[in-house]
C-alpha cells in the first residue's frame, strides 16, 4: 500500500492537517512501530552493559552544562586549537550568512559537484537548495538522505531519514529516478546506491559534513557514522567544510569518550558505530591523501536565543540521538513529517518553536501526552517534557489557544475543585453518552474524533463500583 501523499506543505503551522493525513495510514504506522520498537529493544540491550548508566547521564549533563555556561571560553579554545591545526574557522550569525560562507568557498574552488554527509544544521539553513541554485550538483550521500533527496522530501527522523518509506516505495523511486529495473530487496537497492554514489565521492571538489562533537582542547571535530559516506566525503574531495552549531563543543577527549558511549547506544542501539572519525585538520605534508583545505563554520541561527531563555537552555545539550523520538507515543503514531519541521518528536517540539518562532509552531508543544518518557530516555538528561509544558504556558500567554479550549479548561478546573460538581459532571456525561456512541461503541466528539479514538465509557464510574462493593460486603 503506497503512502498517500498529502499536498499540505510541510510546515509546523499545518500540524493538524499533516496529522490528519497520516494518522489513518496503516502502512506508515506499521513502519514506524517496527522501526521504533527495534531501536528501543537494541538500546536496552546495550545500555545494560553499564550498571552506572544513570551516573553517566548525570555526568554528561554536568559536562554539557559547564560547556554551555562557559560557551565563549570553549569556543575561543576550540578556535585557537583548530586554527593551529590548519583549520580555517568561520562564524555565522544566521542561516543566510552560513549559506553565503559555504557558497563563497565552493565558488572559490570552482566546485561543480559537492558531496554531503548528514548534517542537521545544513538542513536547518537550507544549504542544498542554495548550492543547487548556483548550479552546483549537491548529492546527499547518507543512504536514507539520498532516498529522501530523490523523493524530494524532508527527512522524517534524525537517524533514519527514510523511516517513513517501505522497500517497495524505495524500489519504485530508484526505478523511476535511476532508470533501473524494479527491485525491492534492500541488499540490491543498497548496491545500486553504492555504485552511483561512489563515482560522486571520487569526482566531487568539495565535501560537506556536520559535526557530532567538537573537542575544544585538541581543536578537532568528531563525526560518527555507519555507512562510510562521511569518511569518504571528508577524505576524497580537495576541500572539506564542516558545519556545526555553537553548542556542539566538549571540553576534551575524556568527555568525548563518555559521549561516544552514550550516543551510539541511544541512537541506534550499537555499542559503537562502524566509523568514528576524529579529524584534526587538513592533510599533513607527509600524508598521501586527505583534503588540502579544511573549514569549520560555527553557526548561531537562534541558539543564543535558547541560551537567554533560562527554561530552554538545556535544549542546547541535545546530542541529536533521536532516542526521544523512538520512545514518544505521539511520534510513534504520527511520524516525523507530521511536525512539519526537520526537528521532530519531543526535542523537535522544543527546538522548532525557538528556530521558527513560537507563533508558527504553537501546536508542537501540545503534540505530547507529557508522559515524560523522553526525559527519562535522554542520555544527557534534558527535562524535555517540562520544557514542553513551559512552552504551552507561553503559547497561552500569547493568546495562542482557542477561546473554546480556554472555556473548556475553565469548566474542567471548576469541576476538579468541587467534589459534588465532579461527581455530577461524570454522571451527566454517562447519561448523555448514548447519544454520541457510534456502531463500534467509541464516543464521537466533534473535530476531536477525526484523529482520535475515545474508548467506550463504562456503565459505572470507579467510585460507584467501589461504594457498591463496600456496601455489599
Amino acid at each position, binding site marked *: 500500500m503506497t503512502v498517500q501523499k498529502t499536498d499540505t506543505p510541510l510546515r509546523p503551522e499545518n500540524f493538524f492537517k499533516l496529522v490528519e493525513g497520516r494518522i489513518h495510514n496503516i502502512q506508515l504506522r506499521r513502519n514506524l512501530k517496527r522501526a521504533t520498537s527495534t531501536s528501543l529493544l537494541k538500546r536496552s540491550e546495550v545500555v545494560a552493559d553499564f550498571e552506572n548508566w544513570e551516573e553517566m547521564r548525570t555526568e554528561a549533563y554536568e559536562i554539557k552544562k559547564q560547556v554551555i555556561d562557559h560557551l565563549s571560553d570553549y569556543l575561543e579554545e576550540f578556535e585557537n586549537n583548530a586554527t593551529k591545526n590548519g583549520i580555517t574557522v568561520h562564524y555565522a550569525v544566521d542561516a543566510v550568512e552560513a549559506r553565503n560562507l559555504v557558497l563563497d568557498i565552493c565558488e572559490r574552488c570552482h566546485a561543480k559537484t559537492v558531496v554531503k554527509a548528514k548534517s542537521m544544521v545544513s538542513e536547518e539553513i537550507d544549504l542544498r537548495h542554495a548550492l543547487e541554485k548556483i548550479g552546483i550538483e549537491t548529492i546527499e550521500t547518507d543512504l536514507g538522505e539520498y532516498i529522501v533527496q530523490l523523493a524530494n522530501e524532508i527527512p522524517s527522523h534524525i537517524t533514519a531519514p527514510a523511516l517513513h518509506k517501505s522497500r517497495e516505495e524505495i524500489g519504485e523511486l530508484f526505478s523511476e529516478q535511476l532508470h533501473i529495473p524494479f527491485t525491492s530487496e534492500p541488499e540490491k537497492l543498497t548496491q545500486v546506491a553504492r555504485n552511483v554514489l561512489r563515482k560522486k565521492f571520487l569526482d566531487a571538489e568539495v565535501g560537506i559534513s556536520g559535526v557530532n562533537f567538537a573537542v575544544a582542547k585538541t581543536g578537532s571535530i568528531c563525526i560518527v557514522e555507519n555507512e562510510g559516506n562521511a569518511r569518504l566525503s571528508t577524505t576524497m574531495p580537495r576541500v572539506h567544510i564542516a558545519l556545526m552549531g555553537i553548542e556542539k563543543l566538549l571540553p576534551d577527549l575524556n568527555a568525548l569518550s563518555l559521549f561516544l558511549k552514550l550516543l551510539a547506544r541511544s541512537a541506534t542501539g550499537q555499542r559503537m558505530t562502524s*566509523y568514528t572519525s576524529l579529524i584534526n585538520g587538513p592533510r*599533513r605534508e607527509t600524508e598521501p591523501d586527505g583534503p588540502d583545505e579544511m573549514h569549520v563554520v560555527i553557526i548561531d541561527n537562534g541558539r543564543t536565543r535558547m*541560551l537567554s531563555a533560562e527554561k530552554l537552555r538545556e535544549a542546547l545539550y541535545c546530542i541529536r540521538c533521536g532516542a526521544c523520538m523512538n520512545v514518544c507515543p505521539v511520534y510513534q503514531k504520527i511520524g516525523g513529517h507530521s511536525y512539519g519541521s526537520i526537528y521532530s518528536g519531543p526535542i523537535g517540539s522544543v527546538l522548532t518553536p525557538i528556530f521558527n518562532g513560537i507563533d508558527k509552531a504553537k501546536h508542537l508543544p501540545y503534540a505530547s501526552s507529557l508522559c515524560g518518557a523522553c526525559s527519562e530516555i535522554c542520555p544527557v538528561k534534558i527535562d524535555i517534557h517540562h520544557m514542553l509544558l513551559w512552552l504551552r504556558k507561553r503559547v497561552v500567554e500569547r493568546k495562542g489557544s482557542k477561546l473554546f479550549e480556554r472555556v473548556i479548561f475553565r469548566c474542567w478546573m471548576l469541576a476538579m475543585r468541587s467534589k459534588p460538581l465532579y461527581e455530577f459532571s461524570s454522571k451527566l456525561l454517562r447519561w448523555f453518552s448514548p447519544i454520541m456512541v457510534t456502531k463500534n461503541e467509541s464516543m464521537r466528539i466533534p473535530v476531536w474524533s477525526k484523529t482520535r479514538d475515545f474508548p467506550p465509557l463504562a456503565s459505572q464510574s470507579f467510585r460507584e463500583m467501589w461504594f457498591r462493593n463496600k456496601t455489599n460486603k
Partner: protein
Amino acid sequence: MTSKEKIFRAITSASGQSHSPDKVDFTTRPRDNHSNFQKSNEDIIHRYMNAVERSGGKAFRFISLDEMLSWVKEFIKKDQCSRIYVSLDETLCRLAESISKFAKENDVEIKLHKDELLTESQRVELRKYLEVTDISLTKGLAGFADTGAVAIYSQAGEARAATLLPTTHICILNKENIYHDMDTALPVLEKLMIEKNPSAITFICGPSRTADIEKVLVTGVHGPKNFILCII
C-alpha cells in the same frame, strides 16, 4: 562588528542573566567504570575477538607473523581478487618480499606502500589504484575490548582511502595494544595527537553498514563490505 563578536556578545548577555559556577576539570574526577566487561574473568583478547565478531567483523588470532602470512595468502587465493594494497609499517615490512612474490605467482597486482613522501602525481596514481583495489592490509594502533573497535590514524605509508575504498579491509593488531575501552587507551591517543598530529584518527568497528531501508541490515554500503582483524 564581526559575526564572531556578534555571537560572543549574544552569549555574554544571555549568560549575564544566569549565575554560572566556576569551571570544573572533569578529567580529575574519577570515572566509575564499573561496566560489566571489566568484571568478567574472560581473557581480554578473547573478549575483544568476540566484540569484533559481534559488530559484524571477523577476528583471527595468530601466534606468529608467519602463521598470519600463510592465512593471508590463503585468503587472497580464496577471494580470487585481482588487486591488493599493503601499507608497510615496521611489522608488515617483514612480509613485503614474501607477499610480493606470492602475488606475482598468483597473477595478483600488488602495491606496497612505504613510509615515504609522495609527489603530487604519485598521490594521484595511488588514489587511482585504490579505487579498484579489492583487499587492503594495514596496521592498527589500538583495540578496544568493550566495543571491538580498532583505532587507526593517517600517516605517510598508509592512505586514508586504503581503509575506505577496497571491498575488504584486513587490519593487523599487536595483542599488547588491546585495551578495555577508549578511556583506558586515552593516554595513547593523547600521545599520538601531540607527537604525530595526524589529520585524522579513525575508530573502525565492523564493516560499513546501513539499516536505512526498513531497518534491514545491509553491509558494504560505501565503505568496505568485509572487515577482518588479525591479532598477533
